[in-house]
């Protein structure tokens, strides 16, 4: 009876697939403001401002180039062939991808813990926070992408490499979208579990470091022996990075089956994340 007379009904029961997606969309202005806040608040009272976004990947790329390229001499080829890849560009492409993935995951994993102050005082669709994180990290990613473009043009102008523009460039935004789904999905799964067990929070930053070595960031995919490739490709980040490089450089490794599998895993993880998140968000205030 109460259902028929009221627009909103709150009960103790929770429908499994009540994910608050439409409501989250209604709060898009809040998402926009949160993204803007993250961006302006971080760089207020700094001299370099948003330039800080490129300092970290730039230095990491230089270190990778020296350690993995010049000292360890790991291959920078994703497929066998006589393509010439500038190592610097190769590491930079992998790095900015993985750093978007890891920073988004790291932040969304702490959604409930970091925002309990506002969440225990006001109701808004909780999903707003991880979504806003994904977009605000995207701004940093775009700045880094612009830096990549500058170096790309530099190496292209030198002419001694095989990089060129192909239609595969269109795969780049698809990869970015996929990274958002995967990192937010995993992040909100972890944030749902960490409302009870804080251990996972420790595991996240450490796990992400290991994950980076399990993904072709510091080396080319060609390093992986053929017989382990199918297993290696189960890591959904691998096809994202190789496909991203394939799009940016115009050559490299692209396998539609593995790529679709990786999309499938990403969407599945995202969906599981949504279900868990919407279940936990109702009463997490009591336990967190």
């Amino acid at each position, binding site marked *: 009876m*109460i*259902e028929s*007379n*009221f*627009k*909103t*009904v*709150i*009960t*103790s029961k*929770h429908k499994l697939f009540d994910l608050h997606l439409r409501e989250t969309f209604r*709060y898009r*202005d*809040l998402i*926009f*403001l*949160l993204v803007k*806040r993250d961006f*302006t*608040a971080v760089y*207020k*009272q700094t001299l370099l401002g948003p330039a800080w976004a490129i300092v970290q990947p730039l230095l990491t790329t230089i270190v990778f180039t020296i350690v993995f390229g010049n000292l360890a001499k790991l291959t920078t080829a994703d497929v066998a062939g006589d393509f010439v890849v500038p190592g610097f560009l190769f590491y930079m492409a992998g790095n900015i991808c993985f750093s978007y993935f890891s920073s988004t995951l790291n932040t969304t994993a702490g959604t409930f813990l970091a925002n309990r*102050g*506002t*969440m*225990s*005082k*006001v*109701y*808004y669709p909780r999903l707003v926070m991880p979504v806003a994180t994904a977009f605000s990290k995207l701004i940093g990613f775009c700045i880094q992408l612009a830096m990549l473009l500058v170096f790309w043009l530099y190496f292209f102008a030198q002419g001694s490499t095989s990089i060129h523009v192909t239609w595969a460039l269109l795969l780049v935004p698809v990869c970015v979208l996929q990274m958002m789904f995967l990192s937010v999905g995993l992040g909100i799964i972890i944030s749902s579990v960490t*409302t*009870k*067990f*804080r*251990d*996972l929070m420790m595991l996240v930053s450490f796990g992400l470091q290991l994950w980076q070595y399990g993904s072709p960031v510091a080396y080319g995919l060609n390093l992986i022996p053929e017989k382990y490739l199918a297993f290696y490709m189960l890591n959904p980040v691998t096809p994202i990075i190789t496909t991203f490089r394939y799009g940016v450089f115009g050559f490299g490794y692209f396998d539609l089956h593995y790529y679709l599998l990786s999309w499938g895993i990403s969407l599945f993880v995202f969906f599981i994340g949504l279900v868990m998140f919407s279940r936990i968000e*109702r*009463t997490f*205030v*009591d*336990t*967190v």
Partner: protein
Amino acid sequence: MEEFMIQVESVSKQYRLGQIGGTTLRDELHRIGARLFHKEDPTKKIGAKSYEDGEIFNALNGVSLCVKKGERVGIIGHNGAGKSTLLKLISRITAPTDGAIGLNGRVASMLEVGTGFHAELTGRENIYMNGAILGMTKKEIDAKVERIIDFSECRQFIDTPVKRYSSGMFVKLAFSVAAHLDSEIVIMDEVLAVGDMAFQQKCIAKMNEISQNEHRTILYVSHNMNTIRELCSRCVVLSHGSVVFDGDVEPAIDIYMNSTEFDMATKVNLAEKERLQVFKLNPESVLVKMSSLELVGKDAPLYGIGEDILFDLELDSKEDSKNLSLRLAVMALGGQYVGNSFIYDFAQMKKDEKRKFRFAANFGGLMPGRYAVSMLLFRTNEWSVANNVDGIRFAFYFEVRDKEEQLKVKYNNIWSKVLFKNIELVNIF
């Protein structure tokens, strides 16, 4: 049919006692293992009370409530009565354990002012931020931002980061945003108690305005009965998670106050009453002890308007005392002091003497209601310096009733507690 905005239907909320959450995975595995082998919980702190499985605390116990459109409902009760839990459930911060809540319209919950304020952002940016968190769209805020700034009295500083604001400016700005929400249901928890007195009055006026002109529904929790009186049209009393009263404001406040302190006794053993703080800290300073009190000629402490209160007071002197004087301070239940009454130099006593005195006190025309009397015994010297010898807060209680129907109309006595002489008509022109 009248439109219901909120319907709470037999809602319960349970919390598990003992430690919940904040555990580590290892602890939890240990605990599961111990349960399997019927051992004692290894993660339990030594000496901590052990809670059985299923030992739960009912913060709310089958609460039902209907609120119509445009009503301003106050919710009062002691700490732990479940007021805040109820507001949290209605504002969807946490979910009920049982029961259902129906809402017709958007809910703006102001359980705290300034939620989501970021110190680095300017006042204006924070208006947008806070408004969006409270559920407004950017367009709605655009339309109201000027009014919000005017209301907050912070226009001069609006483009300065809020970290440089004084705490008063901060809460004023925060409240202003919340006061301009568009939602049909407004939920507030003590938030009117912000800013200086002038600003508080402004807030209450604003809340009254939005409820009466725009027919918005307000739920307000407070321990301050004066703001409840000024704002609410109806009042709900919660006690131990259940509704014990739902109706007019004054009777609700009476019920709430009664359950704390009103005492119908006419014989009071003052010797065992709690002393004022100074005497509690230093019991030696009680030189003449007020040991017992009796209201003369009454079975219950009920008096008519303007009736004398006759009482016998027994004093027990520990040393020679001259110029004993007594002060009675009358407080209305609800927290306002109403007035004082004195008697100077009424006795001198010798060491270890016990004597009884009968006094007649008249507190003028008090309005019907319940009152508490605090007593202070003191000595004066030739330079009119008082030296307190004993003091008791709320020594006895009494109730004034309009026995002889002196008031021609039944007043909702929200304005004051003292009834002066009636106005005389001097002339008609």
